[in-house]
């Protein structure tokens, strides 16, 4: 019999689609954790999130209300699920749901004994796309110039002044490179109809995309960090293949960011490296990215570390990892019985 603790861990982001949520990658790392065993509870928003049907990864799934329904509704639903499952730890994996979870963090811990390791509300807001330019100035990090726009007129004026190509971004998701004013307008409408306003217009930086996945302990220490270079990028801008790299400058920049901001929780830093060797910070995502399983493959199970931090265990910072480990993503058709779809659709559980 194993003397390791067994945790029940709830995970969102089960949308393992072509622009995948991080849920399945987080679960794969949890399953490989050395210090504990897990039972996985999937939390889904849609009936057809593939993770719901991946029974080898997810033991039980429950639907949860969309973030727009508010904190109280979410708390009630989690209380119901917790009553059945006794959740120890929860991984919110979507930007759009983080606000609610950050606000509920203390209540979930005190009333339901569900632990999470998340950035503070201040950290979450400061790194927001709409504030990133000021963030870069404050912490002496190169960030491409960006402006918020609310109207078509603002968009035209800003994009014209910034010059083309320009990147048109939603406040939570989606980013497109516009080469003409018409394209910019088209993307403005496309993104705002899905994610609302404001839209961000960002200076386009030419270069190679490199990202860092890591964890901060909340006291200025980087618990783990692995840089990755995208090798294959989909039409949605997502990495379909990537390789871990030993880029000292990126690691130094990451440590500095964590130290200065006292970042708590997982993060993904998205950079563009120019041919001159300059690094421009494009985004800070306050959660694990969908490629986070690569960090486990490279020798740093950051997901496991995060759980142990949340469970009050002492976690030593890790600096070593293998450069030259690759991930190659793939898609797969699962065969699913209609009864399973019926269950998640009608009773919201599977």
């Amino acid at each position, binding site marked *: 019999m194993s003397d390791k603790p067994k945790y029940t861990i709830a995970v969102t982001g089960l949308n393992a689609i072509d622009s995948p949520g991080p849920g399945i990658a987080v679960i794969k790392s949890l399953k490989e954790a050395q210090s504990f065993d897990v039972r996985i509870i999937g939390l889904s928003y849609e009936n057809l999130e593939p993770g719901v049907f991946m029974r080898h990864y997810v033991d039980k799934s429950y639907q949860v209300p969309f973030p727009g329904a508010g904190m109280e509704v979410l708390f009630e639903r989690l209380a119901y699920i917790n009553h059945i499952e006794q959740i120890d730890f929860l991984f919110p994996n979507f930007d759009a749901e983080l606000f609610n979870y950050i606000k509920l963090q203390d209540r979930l811990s005190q009333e339901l004994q569900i632990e999470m390791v998340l950035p503070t509300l201040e950290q979450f807001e400061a790194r927001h796309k709409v504030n990133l330019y000021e963030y870069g100035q404050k912490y002496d990090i190169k960030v491409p110039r960006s402006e918020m726009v609310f109207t078509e007129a603002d968009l035209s004026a800003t994009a014209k002044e910034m010059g083309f190509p320009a990147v048109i971004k939603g406040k939570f998701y989606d980013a497109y490179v516009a080469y003409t004013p018409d394209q910019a307008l088209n993307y403005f409408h496309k993104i705002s109809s899905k994610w609302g306003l404001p839209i961000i217009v960002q200076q386009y930086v030419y270069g190679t995309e490199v990202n860092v996945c890591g964890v901060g302990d909340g006291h200025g220490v980087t618990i783990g960090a692995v840089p990755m270079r995208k090798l294959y990028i989909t039409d949605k801008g997502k990495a379909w293949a990537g390789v*871990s790299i030993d*880029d000292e400058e990126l690691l130094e920049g990451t440590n500095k960011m964590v130290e200065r901001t006292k970042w708590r929780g997982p993060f993904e830093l998205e950079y563009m490296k120019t041919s001159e060797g300059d690094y421009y910070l494009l985004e800070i995502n306050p959660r694990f990215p969908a490629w986070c399983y690569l960090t486990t493959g490279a020798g740093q199970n950051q997901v496991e570390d995060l759980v142990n931090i949340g469970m009050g265990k002492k976690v030593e910072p890790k600096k070593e990892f293998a450069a030259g480990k690759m991930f190659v993503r793939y898609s797969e058709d699962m065969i699913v019985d209609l009864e399973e779809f019926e269950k998640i659709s009608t009773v919201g559980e599977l």
Partner: protein
Amino acid sequence: MKVKKNVALSDSGFLFNPSSGESYSVNPIGQEIIKMLNEESSEEEIIATLLEKYNVERDTLEKDIRDFFGMLELYGVVKPEEA
């Protein structure tokens, strides 16, 4: 000229730069040259070794070596000579 630390060259000529994530294929003579650079041979020593081994004009070899070094430098595989 020195090959950057951690740059890995396999027997098949697959060269991986772990700091940039770039990978390249190097032909057998390129492999020989990189191995000599790793052993800290000078440009003149490399030229002398290759002249002895292959049937090639010195001028042609020097030009090709310079092109090859230029490429290694451009791809960030080597550290340029300190002035």
